[in-house]
């Protein structure tokens, strides 16, 4: 889990806690809070939160690869299913590369990853017109350390909801 996403989860959780008028002091450790407190079903069905939490908004790639791993395919099948349930939702697939490559090549490599992801979703029955894609190369890493544990989180395709999701 990336820091950014953890923080979003934690922030969402805090909102939930606040709405429930929970008197418990919120723990300063956002990471732990998010990890411990996140239960499936807390997010409103059909919302961005629901998608990210219960479906999984991202898949990961091996170094310099755009092949979809078995795990990635499983995530994408769940995404396709969810998208077929909420047919108003439109998405953009963001392709990303880790920082251990040159700028231009990584732009192209991340486009290749976004394309593979988009095509898989379309093959699963998601209308092509609902799925756009963009390639960010190495410009937007999610995890910030100079080690494989971070680079492996940065070699990713993220399905971002651009419209039509339910809001609370």
């Amino acid at each position, binding site marked *: 889990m990336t820091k950014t996403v953890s923080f979003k989860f934690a922030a969402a959780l805090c909102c939930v806690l606040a709405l429930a008028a929970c008197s418990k002091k919120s723990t300063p450790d956002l990471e732990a809070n998010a990890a411990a407190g996140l239960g499936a079903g807390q997010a409103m069905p059909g919302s961005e939160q629901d998608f990210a939490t219960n479906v999984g908004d991202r898949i990961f790639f091996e170094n310099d690869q755009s092949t979809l791993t078995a795990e990635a395919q499983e995530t994408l099948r769940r995404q396709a299913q969810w998208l077929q349930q909420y047919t108003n939702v439109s998405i953009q697939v963001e392709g990303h590369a880790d920082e*251990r490559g040159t700028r*231009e090549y990584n*732009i192209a490599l991340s*486009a290749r990853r976004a394309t593979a992801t988009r095509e898989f979703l379309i093959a699963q029955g998601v209308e092509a017109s609902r799925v756009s894609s*963009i390639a960010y190369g190495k410009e937007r890493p999610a995890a*910030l350390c100079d080690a494989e544990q971070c680079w492996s989180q940065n070699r990713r395709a993220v399905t971002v909801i651009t419209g039509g999701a339910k809001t609370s």
Partner: protein
Amino acid sequence: MTCGKTTRSISIPISCSKVRDSDARMMTLAIPFRTFKPVHAFVIFCLALFASPAAYAIDGVVVPERADPLPIAIAPFLAGGGAEETGGTLSGVITNNLGRSGYFAPLDPATFIEQVSNFEQAPNFASWQQIKAKALVTGQAYMDGGKIKVEFRLWDVNTQQQLAAQQFTTTPKNARRIGHIISDIIYKKLTTFDGYFDTRIVFVSEEGPKDKRVKRLAIMDQDGFNVRALTDGKDLVLTPRFSPSTNEITYMSFGKAEPRVYLMNIDTKQREIVGEFPNMSFSPRFSPDGQRVIMSLQDGGNANIFELDLRSRALRQLTNVAAINTAPSYSPDGSQIAFESDRGGTQQIYVMGADGSGQNRISFGNGRYSTPVWSPDGQWVAFTKQGGGKFAIGVMKSDGSGERILTEGFHNEGPTWAPNSRVLMFFRDGQGANGGPQLWSVDITGYNEQKVPTPGFSSDPAWSPKLN
């Protein structure tokens, strides 16, 4: 750099002329530098004697072949009548340029015995020999009817010969440029290589944490002065490149829609999309005549190289391979293109004809090769090489022979050539969540690594052609 060329080709008003022949003895010793319009029969005679290239050997050794940098004294420029600040600027610019080139060791002015007080008089050479100066630069600046007049002379301290002399008239705000032009003349005289100081760098200025980096196009003088932002940071911008012939750059920008290649006039900041294509366009570079742009167009999982004629807007496909083909760079004569492709499995450098014919791989060492950039003199292709967890900058001949690594480390990327093909600039990424890239330069010999001063993190440098 010659007088005639200066007045013709630069937009800012600098006029220049050779220093007055007030001293007959000095004139006899003077070695005139190359000029388009030799006015005296005497000058023509000297030109014949010291045939081009004007390799001047101090102590019998030309500067680039010396084991150690040449000790050079840059006397504080004499200044008066409101030109005091300019005088200091000029000495400072020249000292900094020559020192950073690695070929010169400017001496500390505190050690100077003679305080030059009259520009017209020959220096006291014995006092300069005593502090072991081999070359001496003297100069003066003074106001003349709202304009500033700058004169300089370059001397061989041992033989007491005047090696170069020139006079400039301009507005005070051009003082740094005059300093760069004088640096270019001195550098050329003593190294035989063309100077590269009167040039600029366009680059990407970076700000903020790694996952939310704000990137702006920026331009500055090659020594890091006069930094000016060209974009506001709202759109992600990458890989700016200079036009060889106009005040334009081409670059990639993420906007509201698909990332695209743009053109921008660096004076007016006016920009335009280079063309409407169905998918992302990226990795642009100008042709040597500035009339075409080559770039990659994405198509699904592949990227191929296309050439766009900027006048007719005609698009021509140059590669057609199901792979990533990108980072194209023309040879200086425009007849060939170096590029990178992973068609063989990993990134490697290929060369093809400018029409896309004869695509041949030229990199065969261990590792991945990318970002090829042809040197302005056509002798070398610079590249980024990845292997063993390291990123290196190197050069090879366009047939793949003579590979040489110039610098290697955690992450070095994206070389660009100084117009004299002797110095390369690149960016070096820093480690850690708060780390970021900085600009560095290195001599083609692999010596003299220098950090290029920029206000913050900087990447994707591109060196301009010579301004004068």
